[in-house]
């Protein structure tokens, strides 16, 4: 029989997630094209080199706004509490899927919370450095070269986070991705991954 479902993400949460997610992927691909000559062909995805160069910062602006909305929507759930610190202490059990040795997580586990803060920090770095690179005539060239270095470093960290995020959200933990599609997860999934959250939900 069909399992009872819990609403994990509202429509607004889902839309913002996918705006940020999809713009980030496009930005990452075009950014890689500008950074690695052998990947320059990726600019074809946006209509060639000049078009990609024009669109990259414009899409970046959408990404920046999306990330800001994301921050506002999610931030109140993202402060670490005492159980979160215990969770972090047991992170190697989490990675090894030793479920019974991992302290129960709330709506978000400590890893997700740290991910959020790291993502927000990188977002600030992306937007600040990206804005200077978008309007290069306003600033000195020495500064711009440093901005290019920081922008690339942020992209590299962001790319690594994306790999982790997509892996954990899809193949590693089946049932997770649905939360970002129709917004729902099964109660069994919630009890397994976010017991304290599912408990709260059941009591209501």
């Amino acid at each position, binding site marked *: 029989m069909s399992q009872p479902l819990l609403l994990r993400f509202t429509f607004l949460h889902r839309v913002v997630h996918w705006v940020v997610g999809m713009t980030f992927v496009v930005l990452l691909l075009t950014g890689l094209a500008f950074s690695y000559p052998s990947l320059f062909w990726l600019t074809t995805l946006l209509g060639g080199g000049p078009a990609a*160069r024009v669109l990259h910062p414009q899409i970046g602006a959408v990404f920046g706004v999306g990330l800001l909305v994301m921050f506002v929507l999610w931030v109140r759930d993202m402060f670490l509490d005492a159980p979160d610190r215990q969770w972090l202490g047991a992170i190697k059990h989490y990675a090894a899927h030793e479920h019974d040795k991992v302290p129960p997580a709330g709506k978000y586990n400590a890893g997700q919370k740290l991910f959020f803060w790291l993502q927000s920090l990188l977002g600030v770095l992306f937007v600040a450095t990206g804005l200077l690179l978008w309007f290069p005539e306003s600033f000195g*060239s020495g500064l711009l070269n440093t901005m290019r270095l920081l922008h690339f470093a942020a992209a590299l960290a962001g790319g690594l986070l994306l790999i982790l995020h997509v*892996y954990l959200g899809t193949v*590693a933990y*089946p049932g997770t991705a649905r939360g970002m599609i129709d917004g729902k997860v099964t109660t069994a999934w919630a*009890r397994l991954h976010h017991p304290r959250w599912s408990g709260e939900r059941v009591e209501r």
Partner: protein
Amino acid sequence: MPDTLAIKRISASPSALIPLESLRSGGPVYSKLVDISKCIGCKGCEVACKEWNDLKVEQTSNFGSMQSHKDLSSNTWLLMRFNEVEIGDDLSWMIKKDACLHCEEPGCLFACPAPGAIVQYQNGIVDFNQDQCIGCQNCVSGCPFDIPRFDKETKTVAKCNMCIDRVEVGLEPACVKTCPTNAIQWGIKDDMLALAEKKVETMKRRGYEHAALYNPGGVGGTHMMYVVPHGDRLEDYSLPAHPVASPAPLGGLNVLRRVGSYLLGFGVLSALAHFLAVGPMSPEEDS
């Protein structure tokens, strides 16, 4: 006759790191030599540059200087700068022929992400190919001499191309051709270096004890060299004392790029390895 347009480096290609010197060599390597002490400030070179390269004329205005334009632009590839400096009780014009120096190690080319947008020839010329330019202006911040200029209409970057279409057929650049005092000379780089040495000696004999050749090593030397009477006052000529082709942040960026490509690959492989080791974690289906 040796190939005058044999390619040395192409932007965003392997040749940007390892020049194609071993493939073809033996062709002429040229250089301009600008003798500031011989310049009479006629600006004939500016006109010749505009005419030969068919560059748009820009409205100029008197801003209290002998200088014609305030700055270089995508349509003004050559500007004689008349910096006014007091030396002792005397006013001096520290004239600079401001145009691309055609570096042996071109910072613009190293910074360019668009394959083929910047090409360096074995003869020393660094040329921009606007067809391939994506308008990112990385070359502008990559140039230690502040030469390339972005054109807001064409969304591409332009600069002096050393009249490559003249050099190709054995002619000197237009500014050289037109200079009435031979302040700008043109020839094989080694010959120009020997000539510069003589000029420096002559100047020193005449009392300019700091006379010097400007052919900075930080960019591997240039293919437009200057002989300046006041070699101890390079900043007054608007000449950077220690230009470098790849400043520290860009060197760091190149290292990070190399490391980064491996890190991203390692990230994907780690996820795969984790999956193979512990597999997926699904909730029990019975609840």
